[in-house]
């Protein structure tokens, strides 16, 4: 591929990726602002709570995850599962969450009863949660994704990140091929790199 063709395709890739990921970028930009400026939002974390108990068949399965999933199926719950550190004897306790709400479930296996507290998040809170909805925390080694929709969402986040990296690297090439503006570009890029570096190397 000649230099001219590379330039044309690099430019096309830049705006094709930008257009495909435009709404993803806006979502993560706006939710990023929300996360850093909680003082702008009043009552963001207010949520509606409902509690009930209901009969349940002893959840079937050989493993904690299969028994939990069976309990969720009976209770018509979907989402990312999270277990408390310790399980009381004769209980299957878990939390299940997705951006618009969560549920705390306590299943008494012997009494064949489930005690459920459901929380419904407000729209803005649900919107904000999409920024961090990965089902995994790097500082909690035991946490892992167990809902297929979370995995798909994480794939979308990864794709956006990869797309942005490709766009940035492609933009360096486009800028470098310009006949004018190199000195100013070097100055501005250097300022950006320095702005990152002082934090990364621990000066600030």
């Amino acid at each position, binding site marked *: 591929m000649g230099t001219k063709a590379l330039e044309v395709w690099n430019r*096309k890739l830049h*705006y*094709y990726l*930008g*257009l*495909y990921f*435009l*709404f*993803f*970028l*806006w*979502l993560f*930009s706006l939710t*990023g*602002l929300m*996360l*850093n400026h*909680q*003082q702008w939002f009043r009552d963001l974390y207010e949520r509606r709570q409902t509690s009930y108990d209901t009969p349940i068949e002893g959840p079937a399965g050989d493993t904690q995850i299969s028994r939990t999933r069976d309990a969720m199926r009976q209770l*018509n719950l979907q989402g990312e599962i999270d277990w408390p550190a310790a399980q009381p004897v004769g209980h299957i306790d878990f939390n299940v969450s*997705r951006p*618009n709400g969560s549920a705390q479930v306590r299943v008494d296996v012997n009494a064949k009863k489930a005690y459920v507290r459901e929380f419904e998040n407000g729209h803005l809170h*649900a919107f*904000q949660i*999409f920024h961090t909805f990965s089902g*995994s925390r*790097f*500082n909690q*080694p035991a946490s892992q994704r167990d809902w297929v*929709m*979370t995995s*798909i*969402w*994480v794939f*979308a*986040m*990864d794709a*956006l*990140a*990869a797309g*942005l*990296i490709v766009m*940035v690297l492609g*933009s*360096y090439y486009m800028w470098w091929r310009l006949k004018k*503006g190199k000195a*100013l*570009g070097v100055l*501005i*890029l250097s*300022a*950006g*790199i320095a*702005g*990152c570096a002082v*934090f*990364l*190397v*621990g000066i*600030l």
Partner: protein
Amino acid sequence: MLYRWLRDLHLYFGLFISPFILLFAASVFYLNHGKLSPGGERPADTYRDLTIPDGFDRVKGREAVDRAEAILPQVDVAGGRGFLRYVPEYHHLIFPVSRAGSEATVDVDLDARTATVKRRSMNLWESLSYLHKIPGPHNVAIRGNWIGTQAWRVLADATIYLALFVSLSGIYLWWAIKAERWTGLTLLAAGATTLFGLIFAILHGN
């Protein structure tokens, strides 16, 4: 005229935020898939004869966090304080201090005027992820208690505002290329369908 202005601003604003975009994008992979490996802890250091501000048994919140700042240079620690816990039974003050690259837990014995400091180093991925997440939504009343966090907040906000500008100016620049309008509109619609379809499935799917 407008086209040329927007093209130049798109280029130069984009160049300025590009290292920040790379940082935020690269750290996504660690935040989504990485796991903290044990290690990086160093033996605890003890510091004596500290000059300790009074009133930790009375003050709370931001005021207490601000008072704790006087202790930091005496124990060779710098960074943002995450929270502050006063233990009245033992007259101890415990608080974490963090910055990209390192975090420390400072345990001050207010009566003995000594402090034990446990330090841990972060690897590069952790540092990137740390910067991705600060200042973040937690402890609104006390966060931004270090100049480094305040400066990073300004830069992180600037990155978002400039990214929004770059994306909007990018739409204008794309629309000016008449031959690419239909392909672009198709990709825009495909992206929107993917995003809103995913959101709908996550919120309402079974």
